[in-house]
C-alpha cells in the first residue's frame, strides 16, 4: 500500500540564513493510518505539519525535498493549484480552540462557507452535512449551535466544532497539531477518544503532532521521533514502547512521568544522550549541501 502522504528529504532553513530547521526529513503516512510526530519543543514537529498544509511562516524557507500528496509533489505545484488540492483533500485540527475560530463569525458559517466556496457544494447539502457532523462529535442541539458565536461556547465544545469541521468534507489526510494540549485533562481524554473514533470510522490518515507519548500510545500506529529537525527514529508504536532503537528515543520514553509510580521524580534526558544526538546531527550537517540555496 503506497502512502497517501510522503515527505522525502525535506530540509528547511531560517530564511536568509544557513540555520537548519528541518534536516532531510522522511515521513510516510499510509492511507487510513495514524502517524505520530513526537519530540521536544522546537524540534520542528509543528513545522512539518504546517509545511504539509502549505502554511509555513514566512521566516521558514524550504530548500529541498518533496511533499507528495497522493503522489503529487506539493512543492512543485503552482501556488493556486496547491492551495486547492490541500483545501480539498486535507484538513487541520489546530492546537488552541480558543484562537482557531473567528470571533466575529457564527459557528455555522465557519464550517459551511468553505464547503460552498471552495468545494462547490449546494448550501443546503453543506448545512445538512454539517448538522450530521456536529451530531457525530456529540454536540447537543446542533441547530442552535450553528447560530452561536465562538465566545458562547466552552473550549471543549469549540474543539469539537473544529474536529467536526476537519472531518466534514471527508478529507483523506488530517494534520492534528497538538489538538489536546490547550484543554484540561478530563476534556483531553474525551477529545482524544473522539478523534480516534472518527479517524477509524472515516478511514482518514492522520499526522498527529504531539509531545505526549501517552497520547501516541493511545492513538498512533507508527511514529517519528524528531530532534532538532531530524527524524532520529521512525518505527511502529508497538516496537517503540517495547524497545526504542535510538538512545534519544529511549531517554525520551524513560523521561515520561508514570502515574503508577508517583514516588519517582521526573527524569530528564541524560546529558550524555543529548551530547551524542547533538554530535550525530553535527556530523550529518557537515556532509549536507543544499541543492539550491
Amino acid at each position: 500500500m503506497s502512502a497517501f502522504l510522503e515527505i522525502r528529504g525535506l530540509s528547511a532553513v531560517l530564511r536568509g540564513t544557513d540555520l537548519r530547521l528541518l534536516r532531510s526529513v522522511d515521513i510516510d503516512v499510509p492511507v487510513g493510518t495514524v502517524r505520530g510526530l513526537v519530540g521536544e519543543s522546537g524540534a520542528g514537529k509543528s513545522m512539518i505539519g504546517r509545511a504539509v498544509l502549505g502554511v509555513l511562516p514566512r521566516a521558514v524557507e524550504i530548500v529541498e525535498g518533496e511533499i507528495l500528496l497522493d503522489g503529487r509533489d506539493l512543492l512543485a505545484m503552482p501556488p493556486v493549484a496547491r492551495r486547492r488540492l490541500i483545501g480539498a483533500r486535507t484538513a487541520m485540527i489546530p492546537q488552541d480552540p480558543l484562537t482557531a475560530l473567528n470571533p466575529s463569525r457564527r459557528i455555522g458559517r465557519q464550517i459551511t462557507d468553505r464547503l460552498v466556496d471552495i468545494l462547490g457544494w449546494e448550501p443546503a447539502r453543506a448545512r445538512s452535512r454539517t448538522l450530521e457532523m456536529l451530531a457525530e462529535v456529540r454536540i447537543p442541539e446542533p441547530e442552535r449551535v450553528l447560530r452561536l458565536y465562538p465566545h458562547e461556547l466552552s473550549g471543549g465544545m469549540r474543539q469539537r466544532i473544529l474536529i467536526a469541521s476537519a472531518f466534514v468534507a471527508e478529507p483523506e489526510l488530517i494534520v492534528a497539531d497538538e489538538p489536546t494540549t490547550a484543554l484540561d485533562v478530563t476534556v483531553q481524554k474525551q477529545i482524544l477518544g473522539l478523534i480516534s473514533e472518527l479517524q477509524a470510522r472515516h478511514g482518514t490518515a492522520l499526522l498527529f503532532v504531539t509531545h505526549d507519548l501517552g497520547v501516541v500510545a493511545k492513538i498512533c500506529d507508527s511514529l517519528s521521533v524528531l530532534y532538532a529537525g531530524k527524524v532520529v527514529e521512525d518505527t511502529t508504536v508497538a516496537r517503540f514502547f517495547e524497545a526504542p532503537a535510538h538512545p534519544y528515543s529511549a531517554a525520551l520514553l524513560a523521561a515520561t512521568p508514570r502515574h503508577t509510580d508517583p514516588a519517582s521524580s521526573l527524569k530528564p534526558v541524560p546529558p550524555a544522550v543529548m551530547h551524542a544526538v547533538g554530535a550525530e546531527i553535527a556530523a550529518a550537517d557537515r556532509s549536507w549541501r543544499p541543492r539550491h540555496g
Partner: protein
Amino acid sequence: MARIFALRLLTTLVTLLGVAVIVFVVIRVVPGDPIAMMLPPGATEADIARLRTLYGLDKSIGGQFVIWFGNVLQGDFGSSITARQPVLTLVLGRLPATLELSLLALLMAVLIGGTLGVTGTRLRGTRAEAGIDVANGIGLSVPDFLWGLALIVLFGVVWPLFPISGRVSPRLELPFSTNFYLIESILRLRFDLTRNLLAHMLMPALALALPLAAIISQLLKQSLKETVNLDYAVLARTRGYSERHVILSEALPNAALPTLTLIGVQFTFLMGGTIIIERLFSYEGLGNMAIDAVITRDLPLIQGIVLLFALLFTLVNLVVDMAYVLLNPKLRHA
C-alpha cells in the same frame, strides 16, 4: 443596551454644559471688545455704556451665563451682533456645507487609508510595503492646511484642474430647498451640479483626508498583519482560501475594531480642521463663519458655533461606540 444609551446621553449633556461654561468664560476674558468693534471711532462713554446694557454685557459673567444658558435651553441662542440674525438660523444654514465637506473627507480617508492598509498587508515584507510606510510617514507629518496649500499650487495654479475657492460656481442657478447641496443635487438627479460641487470640494476634502488616511492606513496595516497570523486565518488558508479572502473576510472585520475607534477620535480633529481649510478655500461653511465671528468678537455666534461643534463631536463618538458593538459580537450582550 438601553441603559448604556441613557448613560451616554447623560454624559453627553454634562460634556455640553462644561463646553458651554468654558467657551462662555474664555471669550469674555480674552482681550477684545465687541462693542468697540461696533461703534465708530469717537463714540462717547455714554454710547458705549448704553450699548453694553442693551447686549447685557454690563452684568457679571456669571449673570450673563445664566441668562444665556436659560435661553439656550429654550432653543434661543441669541442674535449675532454683526449679522443681526438669530444665531441658530446662521449656524444651521452653514452646518450642511461643513457636514458635507467633512463626511466627504472622511469617506476619502477611509477609502485611501483602507486600500493602502489592505494592500500593504498583502505586500508585507516587500519593497512596496516600505513604500506605503514612507507615504504614511509623509501623510502623518504634513498638516492638513499645508496639504491644502500644496493642492492649490498643484491643481489650482500649475495644472488648473479644479476651482480653488467657493462651494459652487456663483453663476450657476441652484434649485435647492435645503443647504445640503451635494446630497440634494444627487437626489434631484442634477449631476451637472453634483460635478460642479464635487470639483469645488475635492481639494479641501483631500487636504482634510490625507493625514487621516495615513493614520488609518498605518494602524489598519499593523492590526491586519497581526490578525493574518492568528490561528483562524491560518486555518482558512489550509481550507483553500486565497490570501485576499483571508485578509478581507477573515482578518478585516476583527482588525478593523481598533481602527474604527481611532477614526471616531480623528474625525473630530478633522472637523476641527475644517475651520482653517474652509478659510483657505473660501468655502462657505461653519468653520469660515467661526473665523469671522472670532475676528469681529461676535460673542453669541462664537458660543453657538462652539456648542454645535461640541454636540457633533459627542454624536460622532456615540456613533462609533454603536458601530463597535455591531462589529464585535462579544459586546452585544454586555
